[in-house]
């Protein structure tokens, strides 16, 4: 125990912290510029000078650690004089343009000058001038205002790991510049904007549009872009969203955001938003009244149910919609007598989680994000976390900086500079490498941990390839595999980060479970959409009821059905891709799509579109006119994330509150669904989102008794206040070819998950489009020169399924013979080029037909 005295107040501390932190924790404010809670200490601004007894000179509180018996004074005549001088020096070159500076009102310099400020400057020479950096579409730099606290640089290199900016020049002439010149060429996370204490680096999105004190409301909500579920504050002025900002220490993101979250919000105010319900008349979608549209949907669905049975109806739930929306939606579909309900979570998330839970126990993916940064080793399989879940990626980079071993299997260019080793087998041969790793680890550990008997029995009969065999099959070095296995086996705390591709493939998912078991590792399942976990928990699965209860258990099914006042059919429904197949063969006649765009987001676009066209009746509920909505018979406009109340469940299985910040006319997804439900004769008496939460808390054993107050009060971690489903161990069989690497050679087509885009929403965001405006074909320099292609050339990419003409972009982050195409831009998606096969267990579509030919145009 350390006892110190600050301003005559005795403070007891458990461990040595800096004077600044000790003071802050006890409500004593010490002014500072360069110190920031998540950045490393620097001690450069000299604003936090304090007097310490028995020390001859003033000390910087941010770098001075407390010692027992220390006596500190934070305010005195001497200190004020010193601080005033610091401010006077800063103001030699800092312009006095507060009236137009967007930072005014939340500017630290402004506040401190008001507090200590000199009334006059004694410096006679003219100020150094820098023209404003207006060449970047998102970030505007005003280097006249910079006070050289280097917070942005320390954020960029120390936390974000992008190292895109640095201080250039010396002395008076120093300024913060991106390495790429006037325009940024970085991850556009914008975390430098958060930490800038003055107005030197600011967002261009809301430039000059409001002053900080004109904000009428600040609402804490959750980011609508990916499954990390970053907490953010939405600032609203007069019912218009001005900007979103993170808050230090709040949520899993701890004050960080990525480019999508920070700059992507403008889609809310897009002019392309759907406003009126549309009904197809004479082959054209025409505006209709809500009454007419809802009546049409209800009566057509009832007709189809009566004529072809409930099984002819299918529903695709939305991973962008809240838990409340999805709960109401699955109730509607089940109320129509069908279990054909699935969602985009089928693309790898739901299946992977099922296998992990089946092999390791329930709730195995409920792991707090902060655990990654504290790991000794991180293994990344099946995706690039710094592009899919950027903030999760930052946590891995932080772990690497702390000395953790980071190993990636497959392409992960975002971790290129932050990994110990990157193994790059054939995209379909992740399993071989993992098999090799497992057998090498087992050789190293000599015995299995014991504890999970059935799993251990399974491991013994797995026919794992030896490290040498695996290395040979994947053209890697056996030594590498051996060394990495040693590193993993030696680590005391391991995290495994699993992407969609690895989760969807049952073999990889099983091997991940085995690795997790033998290394006692935490599993982090990447989630590309904000509420994939919510879809699973709310029962938007063909074989699951809310709360993760299997449909097959009769007692639970009856109980659930009784509380809804319906008979839930006992047969399991069709999964996502099976629904599409059934639609094309005529088995499914009507489909209700909520907040999803299957015509674009599902593989084999052409056939999917064809199947949707064959439907007798298609209802699409969305906020934009998507490819699917254009084919629909009825289009229902919904509300966006900032316009509704509800909850999202993130990849950590944490339920977080979404709060309504702006109100526009229209109906929330759950309200539309409830209106349809009422017309069909279902009991859906919901007045507000909280009513649905009440029903969920009653019906779902996992969410038993959960209220919004609990969620906001921090009672939001799995298994909440309820009971998880137990006793459902299941061990699928490994496929016969799990450990064989495909022999095929040549260029391989890969799905790019771009950092700047995520699908329907990001497409309509002008800021994201300005930094990534079009679909490109990414090639490694070697591949491009082999094909005689240069940056900016157009190339025709052809597969068996079709061809696309794309602009070539040479990307030095890509290794090996791979061509990357994203699936984000209309008419130019990768899924129009590839086919798929269904995994027999997870039922996820696995990409097939990666062989491509590229011709210069």
């Amino acid at each position, binding site marked *: 125990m350390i006892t110190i005295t600050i301003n005559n107040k005795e403070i007891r501390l458990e461990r040595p912290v800096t004077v600044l932190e000790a003071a802050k924790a006890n409500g004593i404010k010490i002014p500072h510029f360069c110190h920031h809670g998540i950045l490393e200490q620097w001690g450069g601004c000299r604003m936090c000078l304090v007097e310490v007894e028995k020390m001859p000179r003033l000390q910087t509180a941010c770098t001075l650690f407390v010692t027992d018996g220390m006596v500190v004074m934070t305010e005195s005549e001497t200190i004020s004089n010193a601080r005033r001088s610091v401010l006077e020096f800063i103001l030699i070159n800092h*312009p*006095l343009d*507060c*009236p137009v500076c967007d930072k005014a009102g939340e500017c630290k310099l402004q506040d401190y000058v008001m507090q200590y400020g000199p009334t006059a400057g004694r410096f006679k020479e*003219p100020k150094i001038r820098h023209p404003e950096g207006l060449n970047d579409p998102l970030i505007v730099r005003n280097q006249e205002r910079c006070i050289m606290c280097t917070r942005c640089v320390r954020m960029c290199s120390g936390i974000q790991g992008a190292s895109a900016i640095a201080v250039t020049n010396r002395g008076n002439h120093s300024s913060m510049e991106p390495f790429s010149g006037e325009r940024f060429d970085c991850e556009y996370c914008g975390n430098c904007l958060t930490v800038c204490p003055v107005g030197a680096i600011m967002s261009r999105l809301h430039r000059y549009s409001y*002053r900080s004190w004109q904000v009428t409301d600040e609402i804490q909500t959750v980011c609508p872009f990916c499954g990390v579920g970053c907490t953010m504050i939405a600032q609203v002025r007069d019912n218009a969203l001005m900007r979103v900002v993170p808050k230090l220490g709040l949520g899993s993101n701890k004050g960080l955001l990525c480019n999508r979250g920070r700059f992507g919000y403008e889609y809310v105010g897009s002019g392309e938003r759907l406003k009126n319900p549309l009904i197809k008349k004479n082959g054209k979608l025409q505006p209709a009244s809500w009454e007419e549209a809802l009546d049409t949907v209800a009566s057509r669905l009832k007709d189809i149910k009566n004529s072809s049975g409930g099984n002819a109806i299918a529903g695709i739930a939305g991973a962008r919609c809240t838990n409340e929306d999805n709960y109401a939606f699955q109730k509607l579909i089940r109320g129509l007598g069908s279990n054909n309900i699935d969602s985009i979570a089928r693309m790898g998330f739901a299946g992977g989680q099922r296998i992990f839970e089946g092999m390791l126990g329930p709730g195995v993916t409920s792991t707090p994000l902060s655990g990654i940064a504290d790991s000794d080793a991180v293994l990344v399989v099946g995706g690039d976390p710094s592009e899919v879940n950027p903030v999760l990626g930052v946590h891995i980079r932080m772990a690497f900086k702390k000395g953790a071993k980071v190993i990636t299997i497959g392409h992960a260019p975002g971790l290129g500079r932050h990994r110990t080793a990157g193994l790059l087998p054939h995209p379909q041969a992740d399993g071989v490498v993992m098999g090799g790793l497992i057998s090498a680890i087992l050789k190293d550990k000599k015995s299995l941990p014991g504890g999970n008997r059935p799993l251990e029995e399974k491991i013994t009969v797995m026919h794992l390839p030896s490290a040498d065999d695996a290395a040979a099959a994947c053209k890697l070095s056996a030594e590498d595999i051996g060394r990495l296995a040693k590193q993993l086996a030696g680590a005391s705390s391991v995290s495994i980060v699993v992407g969609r591709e690895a989760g969807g493939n049952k073999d990889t998912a099983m091997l991940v479970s085995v690795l997790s078991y033998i290394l006692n590792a935490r599993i982090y399942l990447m989630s590309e959409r904000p509420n994939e976990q919510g879809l699973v928990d709310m029962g938007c699965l063909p074989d699951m009821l809310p709360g993760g209860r299997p449909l097959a258990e009769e007692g639970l099914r009856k109980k659930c059905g009784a509380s809804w006042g319906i008979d839930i059919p006992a047969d399991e429904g069709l999964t996502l891709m099976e629904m599409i197949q059934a639609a094309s063969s005529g088995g499914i006649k009507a489909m209700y799509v909520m907040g999803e765009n299957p015509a674009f987001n599902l593989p084999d676009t052409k056939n999917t579109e064809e199947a949707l066209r064959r439907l007798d009746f298609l209802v699409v509920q969305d906020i934009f006119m998507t490819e699917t909505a254009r084919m629909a018979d009825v289009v229902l406009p919904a509300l966006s994330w900032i316009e509704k109340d509800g909850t999202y469940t993130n990849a950590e299985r944490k339920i977080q509150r979404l709060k309504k910040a702006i109100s526009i006319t229209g109906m929330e997804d759950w309200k539309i669904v409830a209106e349809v439900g009422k017309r069909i004769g279902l009991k859906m008496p919901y007045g507000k989102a909280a009513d649905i939460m009440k029903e969920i808390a009653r019906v779902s054993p996992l969410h038993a008794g959960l209220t919004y107050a609990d969620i906001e009060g921090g009672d939001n971690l799995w298994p909440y206040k309820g009971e998880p489903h137990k006793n459902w161990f299941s061990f699928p069989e490994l496929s016969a070819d799990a450990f064989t690497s495909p022999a095929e050679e040549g260029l391989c087509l890969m799905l790019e998950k771009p950092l700047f885009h995520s699908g329907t929403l990001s497409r309509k965001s002008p800021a994201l489009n300005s930094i990534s405006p079009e679909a490109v074909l990414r090639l490694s320099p070697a591949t491009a020169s082999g094909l005689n292609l240069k940056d900016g050339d157009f190339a025709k990419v052809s597969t068996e399924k079709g061809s696309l003409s794309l602009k070539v972009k040479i990307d030095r982050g890509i290794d090996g013979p791979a061509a990357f195409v994203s699936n984000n831009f209309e008419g130019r998606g990768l899924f129009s080029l590839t086919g798929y096969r269904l995994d027999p267990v997870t039922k996820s579509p696995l990409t097939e037909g990666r062989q491509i030919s590229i011709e210069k145009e």
Partner: protein
Amino acid sequence: MEFKKIIKTIFFTEILKGMALTFKSMLSPAVTRQYPEEKHPAMPGFRGLHALVVDPATGKEKCIACGLCAAICPSQCIYIYSTEGPDNKKFAERYEIELTRCIYCAFCVEACPVGAIVLTEHYEYTDYSREALYMTKEKLMANWNKYMAGPKGEEYFKKFWHPTADDYRAYDGQPMFRKREG
């Protein structure tokens, strides 16, 4: 006491005193102004109808849309919506004052760092509709041209409100941190 009271009662001294004042006033000139026909000249610094200062050099408003007038306004009747202009400078897209709520305290004039808003000496603007008493940017700039253009406007700032930015003016328009001279 009794005697004095009796004298007062008998001789109506108080009435005579009153009548003396009446006769005196009758002979002095009248103070009542025949208002609509005869206008009252506003005193210097009178706080009447608002106007946005038009810069004679550019013909545009001087306002930089800092919002300090709206922030200080005790009755919160100033609405400013700013944006980035084509020259990347900040400007007020909408500058509106609700006259029916204004209390004519002139805090806005005092707060303005660049001397962009004034209260003119014009006071005759009653109307039957609220719309007519809702000032937009165009109306406010027209007010300046109508009531304050020329030397009158220049005089106004010299005499009354001294924009704070003038104290700090250094070189090529860049405000400088310097003590007020003199």
